[in-house]
């Protein structure tokens, strides 16, 4: 068990734990994504929606990932001491991760970064998620619902079989609208009209986006037009994950200036209007 040490006063001075968590579940959810659930009681108590863990992917004869890999928290069960990840198998690290069996241990560092915050009052929120964003934004549904915010989630994917967390979103009491490239209704024009409708119905008091540059721009336009609170979760390659190495920077608007911020510790969740996209 770790203790808290002398840390200079700063907003991000929560303890960060490195633990070897036992894998409880690990299965494919579709042709691209896998769900992994681990037992991490101490970390689950600290974890917040929008934060991430830095995972040490195992090395074997074929795959030698060197860095850790950042992965959003897909689900938090604080009482049961469990954390879930929903990840896409893409390259070396995630391929190595996919090989881990139930009962094996996963070295996880975290929770890291700044998570989502909610708008004032009980404003209803709209979530715009695609790809990895489906994983990152998933825990926001439960968080917002439990704080009394009605949630509408627009879930976007290439094809219907790649849509994820639709049932979970509805089970949590939120409204889920699905759009896919295959069905031809995921283009920005159609999603924009969905947002207009939601605004007219008084269901869009704040906007959250993750997983697509197009959806980010769209969310920004609508948030600016209606003066709404909004947040975006960003990705960037990371080395340390703690804010020390400055490799994971992205550009943001700060007044008239363009500044770099570190996704790992100044994000991954940022004010919607400040993100410059990628």
């Amino acid at each position, binding site marked *: 068990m770790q203790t808290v040490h002398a840390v200079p006063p700063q907003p991000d001075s929560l303890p960060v734990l490195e633990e070897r968590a036992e894998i409880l579940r690990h299965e494919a959810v579709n042709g691209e994504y896998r769900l992994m659930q681990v037992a991490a009681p101490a970390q689950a108590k600290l974890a917040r929606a929008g934060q991430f863990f830095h995972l040490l992917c195992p090395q074997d004869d074929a795959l030698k990932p060197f860095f850790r890999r950042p992965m959003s928290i897909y689900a938090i069960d604080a009482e049961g001491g469990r954390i879930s990840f929903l990840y896409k198998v893409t390259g070396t690290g995630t391929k190595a991760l996919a090989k881990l069996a139930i009962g094996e241990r996963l070295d996880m560092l975290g929770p890291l970064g700044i998570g989502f915050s909610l708008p004032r009052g009980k404003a209803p929120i709209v979530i715009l998620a695609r790809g990895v964003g489906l994983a990152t934004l998933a825990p926001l549904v439960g968080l917002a619902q439990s704080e009394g915010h009605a949630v509408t989630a627009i879930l976007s994917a290439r094809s219907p079989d790649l849509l994820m967390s639709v049932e979970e979103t509805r089970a949590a009491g939120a409204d889920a609208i699905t759009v896919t490239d295959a069905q031809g209704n995921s283009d920005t024009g159609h999603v924009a009209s969905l947002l207009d409708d939601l605004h007219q119905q008084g269901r869009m008091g704040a906007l959250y986006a993750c997983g697509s540059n197009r959806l980010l721009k769209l969310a920004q336009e609508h948030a600016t037009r209606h003066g709404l609170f909004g947040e975006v979760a960003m990705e960037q390659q990371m080395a*340390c994950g703690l804010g020390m190495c400055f490799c994971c920077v992205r550009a943001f608007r700060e007044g008239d200036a363009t500044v770099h911020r570190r996704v790992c510790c100044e994000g991954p969740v940022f004010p919607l209007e400040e993100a410059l996209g990628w």
Partner: protein
Amino acid sequence: MVDLSVDIGALRLANPVMPASGTFAHELAQVFDVDRLGALVIKTVTADKRIGNPTPRVAEVAGGMLNSIGIPCKGPQHFLDETVPLYRAFKAPLVASISANTPDEFARLCEMVSVPGVTAIEVNISCPNIEDDGRAFAMRPEPTLAVMRKLRAASDLPLWAKLTPNAGEIQEVAQAAEQGGADALVVANTILAMSIDITTRKPSLGKVMGGLSGPAVKPIILRMAYQCARSVAIPVIGCGGIMNAEDAIEYMLAGCSAVQVGTATFIHPSAMLSVIDGIEAWCAQNGVARVRDIIGDLAQAGDEGARNWGADMSAEKPKSGKPGEMNWEGVA
């Protein structure tokens, strides 16, 4: 109880383990008690404000990583106003790292950061010198001597010169740094390298070339630390690819008085603690009462009997490794 303290010139450190510049900041205190470290070496501060290099700034390679972070920096005033006060919360001595593009600018910066709260200054002379066509100061002995003299005149604090492994004759650069007034050497910075993604045909780094660090560099930097330690009288701090206590002990046997750990922290944030604990355990097991007794305590090479392959080969085996007239070291 093993005495882990070591001396870097007049400065006594509680143990020989400290972070390498650019791989440590106060955020690590969220993970472990950084007061257990021998010293706290922080990211290089430059004379000007810098935004850093384009992304991607890092890439994985076999046994290590490339980086081209480009030293983003908020400038020396921010360092004095924010960073130095922040580090008052810690007990381990603060070592500032500085860099500049001309000898005069370097000296002014050195004077500026010589303030209470800073225990020593690591001078990162592995950065480009505008007055030498952008070659790093530490690429050659002459500019090294010139810049070290100016830095020496600018500060009374201990100065640690951080050398570049890209130099041809690092021993000569080491001697120039010593002659110029360095109190210690840090050997070394990263090795200039690159990699290419063959799918996109793009260089992996936004800046094309960058510095190699991690386990891949250890044998090379260990050799350089050994050469430097034999060439100068001032302490050498080894830095390159140290992932565990065994690596650190190798560096100390090669002649280093202390070690810096960089890349390892990115993989295991508490790697430096494991190195300290591992050194202590190794000393206890090997009857070493004071870790400083192993500095440079390298046994003679070439005695095949020492390999203990079972056969008794000790009888007439000639001892090699004695300094001869010609230097055939490293010749294949």
